[in-house]
């Protein structure tokens, strides 16, 4: 259990998909705990994927509780080997990334999604969500495929400077 350093844009392994976690080991559970601890350590952080802390595995955590744009909220969500099953309707909205903290971008994302994955106990979960939680999930799934929000901008006008809280 520890707060890990979040990799910056220049350090991320871009364009290479992360590997399946497969059968859950104690290492996988420790990874989940590190992701949660790292996410909780930054007040503005509501989601984090394993590749962002330098672990090339398909796992992410998120918690959008209390977010003003959230509708459906699952609380603290830990998913291994997540898989997107359905994605409907799109909306353009601004999002930021722990690995690119100086910038935000306007990105089109599905507003209603269904995904499947396994929780820390290894149980399969099917999750239906929408609005900001859907955006957060899709952002994390991108990380698992070696993508960041910058890969999805409509143009230079969709990129904005972000105040960095140091």
């Amino acid at each position, binding site marked *: 259990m520890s707060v890990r350093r979040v990799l910056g844009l220049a350090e991320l392994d871009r364009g290479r998909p992360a590997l399946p976690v497969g059968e859950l080991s104690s290492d996988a559970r420790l990874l989940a705990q590190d992701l949660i601890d790292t996410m909780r350590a*930054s007040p*503005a*952080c*509501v*989601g*984090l994927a394993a590749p962002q802390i330098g672990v090339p595995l398909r796992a992410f955590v*998120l918690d*959008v509780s209390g*977010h*003003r744009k959230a509708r459906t909220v699952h609380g603290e969500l830990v998913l291994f080997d997540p898989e997107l099953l359905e994605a409907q309707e799109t909306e353009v*909205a*601004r*999002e*930021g*990334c*722990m690995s690119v*903290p100086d910038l*935000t971008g306007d990105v089109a994302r599905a507003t209603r999604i269904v995904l499947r994955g396994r929780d820390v106990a290894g149980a399969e979960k099917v999750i239906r969500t929408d609005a900001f939680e859907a955006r*957060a999930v899709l*952002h*994390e799934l991108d990380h698992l495929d070696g993508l960041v929000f910058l890969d999805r901008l409509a143009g*230079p*006008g969709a990129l*904005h*400077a*972000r*105040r*960095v809280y*140091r």
Partner: protein
Amino acid sequence: MARFSLHAVGVDRPGIVAAVTGALASIGANLEDSRMTILGGQFSIMLVLDAPSVADASLLEEALAPASTELDLLIAVRPLVESAHLDAGGEMAVVSVHGADHPGIVSRMAGEVAAAGGNVVDLATRVVGEPEMPGYVMVLTVALAPGSTLESLSERLAQAAAELQVHCAVAPGDGELL
């Protein structure tokens, strides 16, 4: 580190970015942040560059002189003065204003932002629609003064927007991180 800001303006044509950045690369200048756009057929670019081997802005202007002459560009280079405004600590807001076009919309809304202690850090405006009934769209990003709230700015701008007969929406600018 010797950092400079560069502004270049001229009638748009193919090859301007290549010519300007080529001249900068030839003297070892490293481009940092930049923004380029075309408004009314006019090319405009602002960029920040790091030129460790350049002692004086005039040397950069000399290197750019052939491109400037060939492409009829107005180019200005200045030593970069750091500004701390964006890191002042207040919230960020995105203000969207739209309605029928008439003089004074930008100045009034920007005046309200300034009066609230806010700093406009990004601004884009467009005239849209048919010439006989033009609409106006303005989007600006504002760094609020520390302690100032989105709600108070929103109320102030709503009042001004009502008087200008335009629509105004204020949204949080900095989202959560993922």
